[in-house]
């Protein structure tokens, strides 16, 4: 069976949410969720719109704090995080290179070094040609590449992605998905991705965690097919099986919630 309750954490957990709950006023966004992310793993959080998966991502990234429960992290001096939002969130008055260098600038890295590292990150995101351009001169896909480069410039050990490519056209999205997966295979940061798209989750992640409608509860925890991710993966059998398992779990949860 593809569906199992929790992933067996063979690698040590980099981040562990224990029984976390989060409310916004009267809205119960997350209800006692426990979830661990192994170091160097790639996990996708999927679920119906507004179910609270972004809240869980923000709790895991420690940019939000739970009302109840705890978020534990492995003690690691070299730990650093990158966060990619739904929108590129670039500063309009800065060139792409200066935008990418921003996290280093705020961390007090000297100018020459941070620009050199920004160039390296732009190389990784395949945007080196556009380093001198301003955000308004970029296409939607290039803006997301810039945002990706900015998140990678600190060489993060953890990368959080909140529906990063949702606003892009299908072709650009596939292209960026493939590059993101290749980057992860090379850099092996701990990646947590929120997405609406089950195929995207199955393609990018090793593990898909499926949530119920609000308040978010885990209804399925699925290992996605192992092996190479290339253009053929999108049309292959393996992807179909993972998507089907995710869809079934989600539909069951939605029916349960209606009852």
């Amino acid at each position, binding site marked *: 069976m593809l569906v199992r309750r929790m992933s067996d954490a063979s690698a040590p957990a980099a981040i562990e949410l224990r029984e976390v709950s989060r409310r916004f006023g009267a809205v119960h966004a997350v209800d006692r969720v426990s979830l661990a992310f192994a170091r160097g793993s790639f996990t996708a959080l999927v679920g119906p719109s507004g179910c609270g998966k972004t809240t869980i991502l923000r709790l895991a990234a420690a940019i939000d704090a739970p009302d109840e429960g705890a978020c534990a992290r492995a003690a690691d001096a070299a730990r650093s995080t990158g966060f990619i939002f739904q929108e590129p969130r670039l500063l309009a008055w800065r060139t792409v290179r200066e935008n990418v260098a921003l996290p280093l600038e*705020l961390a007090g890295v000297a100018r020459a070094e941070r620009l050199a590292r920004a160039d390296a990150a732009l190389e990784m995101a395949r945007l080196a040609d556009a380093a001198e351009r301003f955000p308004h001169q970029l296409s939607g896909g290039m803006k997301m590449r810039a945002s990706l480069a900015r998140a990678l410039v600190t060489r993060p050990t953890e990368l959080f992605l909140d529906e990063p490519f949702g606003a892009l056209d299908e072709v650009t999205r596939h292209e960026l998905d493939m590059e993101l997966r290749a980057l992860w295979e090379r850099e092996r940061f701990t990646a947590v991705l929120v997405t609406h798209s089950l195929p995207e989750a199955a393609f990018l992640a090793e593990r898909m965690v499926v949530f119920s409608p609000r308040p978010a509860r885990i209804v399925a925890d699925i290992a996605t097919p192992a092996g190479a991710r290339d253009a053929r993966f999108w049309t292959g059998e393996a992807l179909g099986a993972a998507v089907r398992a995710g869809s079934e779990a989600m539909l069951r949860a939605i029916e349960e919630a209606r009852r």
Partner: protein
Amino acid sequence: MSPPPRTASRALTVVGPIVAVAIAVLAWSAVKWAFELKDFVLPSPLGVARAFLDDPAPFLRGALQSAGSALLGFAIAAAGGVVLGSAISLSRTVERSVYPLTLLFQMVPLVAIAPLLVLWFGYGRPAIVASAAIVAIFPVIASTVSGLAARDANLDELFRVLGAGRLATWWKLALPSAVPSIVTGLKIAAGLATIGTICGEFLAGAGGENAPLGVMITTALRNFQTERVFVSVLLAAGVGFAVFGSIALASRVLLVRWMR
């Protein structure tokens, strides 16, 4: 054959104002001739031109004096306005207590406080510059406050996630976001600084060799040298254009990064 419309409209932007000025000068002459007005009530355009050309040096020195005061007053208003506006938006306490008071700059008529400026600074440039700065500062404060408040909440969150402190967020996000708004305030201030300068000169200007335009106007009025009043007023308008123009030009250079 008619020229292409683009050339025609470009020609109109040059020829139009010239024609308008010519018509105004003609109308001016016509009014003087029709009502048989004396020179000290309404001088002829030719008389005004002659008053200037006979001895242009004092007028030009006066214009330079006034332009210098206006630019100095503008600079003080610009720096002080951005600093005050930033302090107001950085601290809720300052916003509640100081911001309403800055409205005083806008509300109290300059003529009412000008005598005080003379009392504090004496006759001469300091009082004039102070009067220019007081008139010009409010739009800078207001545009700074509203520009700083209007920044994108998403970018605010980005800076929070990146661990930026309050000061870094202000310097690298809030202030650059506010630049287009501040520049609009600065352009308004540039025009007001010239008005404040001439008013200040009326009340606090010193006469003599280097009398500024405001003083030349009052002196000429007292002596019924209406031609000289006209020359000074026209030059004051020229100073206003020059100050505004230089600020507008500088802001275009400054705004290159903000253009879309």
